[in-house]
């Protein structure tokens, strides 16, 4: 639909430009090295897509950012080092991660899921009436973004459809009022129409709340539609970086680096 606004990022100052800065990042599982010296930055308020073939290290990158996987090197968010922190600490620093496979709390109702998202703001020790009111307001805000969730607010999350669960997962992450939102394969297993709807909401959130978003997608076309900037990974290394528009338009680049495996899976279609 509309073109992503790239003008904001162009004008950003140095600190704003390096809101999230990843330098020389190494990570892996056991003896398998997945990330081998990754460098990139994401500017504040930007939507950044991370693309690449299966096994390139996209998911691992997000996991390192949210503390689920340990890494070596450096990752700073607004100047604060993220490496060496646990997921709960990363969350406290404003990192909200919607993991692959959604990660909703299936036994909890939709509304309880969202309240858990606001855990850090209410917590076991309640932080006063004002904060609670703010949470209620945020609930309304999420329901405004995702009207389907409002209708199912008393229903168990496990009984929702895949698309609704994904929306719930994003909604829960937003309840944290994150400064950095990490989305891992949001389109996985969703119908094309639902995926598009979801991405539109992400774009709206980004525009209205100035939340910085890093999205990992196999469906490059979709991701590039909402992203300002894109990074292409291959075998744990950055092979291509640039404004999303340019990457999308540069057919040759896409063919060389993204390959058939990426672009052919457009909109969930078969190769």
């Amino acid at each position: 639909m509309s073109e992503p606004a790239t003008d904001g990022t162009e004008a950003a100052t140095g600190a704003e430009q390096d809101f999230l800065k990843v330098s020389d990042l190494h990570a892996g599982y056991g003896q398998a090295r997945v990330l081998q010296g990754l460098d990139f930055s994401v500017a504040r308020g930007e939507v950044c897509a991370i693309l690449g073939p299966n096994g390139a290290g996209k998911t691992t990158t997000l996991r390192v950012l949210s503390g689920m996987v340990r890494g070596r090197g450096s990752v700073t968010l607004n100047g604060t080092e993220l490496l060496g922190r646990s997921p709960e600490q990363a969350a406290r620093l404003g990192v909200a991660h919607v993991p692959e496979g959604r990660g909703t709390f299936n036994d909890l109702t939709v509304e309880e899921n969202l309240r858990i998202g606001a855990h850090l703001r209410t917590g076991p020790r309640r932080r006063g009436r004002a904060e609670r009111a703010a949470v209620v307001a945020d609930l309304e805000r999420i329901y405004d973004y995702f009207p389907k969730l409002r209708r199912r607010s008393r229903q168990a999350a496990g009984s929702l459809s895949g698309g609704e669960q994904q929306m719930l997962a994003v909604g829960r992450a937003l309840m944290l009022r994150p400064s950095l939102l990490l989305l891992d394969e949001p389109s996985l297993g969703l119908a094309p129409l639902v995926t598009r709807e979801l991405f539109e909401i992400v774009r709206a959130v980004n525009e209205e709340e100035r939340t910085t978003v890093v999205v990992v997608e196999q469906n490059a076309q979709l991701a590039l539609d909402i992203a300002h900037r894109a990074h292409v990974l291959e075998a744990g290394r950055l092979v291509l970086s640039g404004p999303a528009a340019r990457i999308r338009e540069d057919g040759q680049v896409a063919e060389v680096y993204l390959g058939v495996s990426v672009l052919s899976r457009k909109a969930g279609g078969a190769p």
Partner: protein
Amino acid sequence: MSTTTASLGTDRVRWLRPTLTVLVAAAVAVGAPFYFAPFQVFQLTMVLLYAVALSGLNLLTGFGGQISLGHGAFFAAGAYTAAVMLDRYDTGHLATLPAAAAGCFLLGLGFGVPALRLRGLYLALVTLSFAVFLPPLLKRLEPVTGGSMGLTVDKLQPPAWSGLAEDQWMYFVVLAVTAVALLLARNLLRSRAGRALLAVRDNESAAEVMGVRLSLHKTLAFAWSAMFAGVAGCLYTWVIGFVSPDSFSFVLSITLLAGLVVGGLGSLYGPLLGAAFVMYVPSVSQDVSEAAPGVVFGLLIITVMFVAPTGLAGLPGRVLGAVARRPPRTTAARDRTPEAESAPGAEPEYQALSGPSETHAPADPAVVDAEPVGAPPRTEKE
């Protein structure tokens, strides 16, 4: 042996080394009863016997992913089959082994059918209540089983031509049965059925899609596993010469499972280590503290699990791995990418048992309790 270890790498050595180690192991195993005192030979015999039961349990739990807390019952069934045959029908020892094996196989088959519908914990508890139920049942069947007084039967006696003492003869017989049983377990796993079993454990629905006949293989796994336990029970009767219902309380079942986990689930030789653990550690415990051996034994179980969460069999690998690899370390569950998923038939040693709570994120204490970070961050709005 040291020379072979020194020069690794060539194909010839790759084959030479296992052959040599097997030969050395065989020589040690055969030589042992001539070296050790009779009661130590008896201890080794018991280790072998428990190893048979444990490798059966391993088929089910380690490879099949089904937890049984009732294997003591199959063990008892095998032991009683042998004892009753010897006591009532005077069949001779040899005849009892196939009978016990076949009987327990059928019993396991019967159990395998309802077990199909039960997962993880529930299966464990149903089998546990079976194990609890068996001793009173044996007491009730007094005319056959001898009731609570149990049955005393003849132990295995060495034939005159062997020139061996009783303990040595028993050791060799049990060694032979154990060797066959372990080989059988190994081959079962490499067969089509075994690979199907592994596929089922790792991903049930995927295996089903692949056309694996899930129910058949799971039921068979139960049957094979019960058969191994029954064979071990039969050997037990041969060696101890006495069975009584209270010898086979549910504690035995729990001990078997504990032995397996301590030895190493899903490892081919974990059962041997586990059997040695349940055999020797209680004695060691009472050497440490005569007042309360249980305190020491309990602590030792916990300690082993701390040091080697995947069992003693996994310990060398863990130690080597820890030396070889430095961080990056993962604190998350295994990668879900298809490449990371183990192919059926792959070496299953480091596979975690798939259970209902597979999704639990391992909480690293060091990470979890790092210093708390202040107030929750807010997104600036402009």
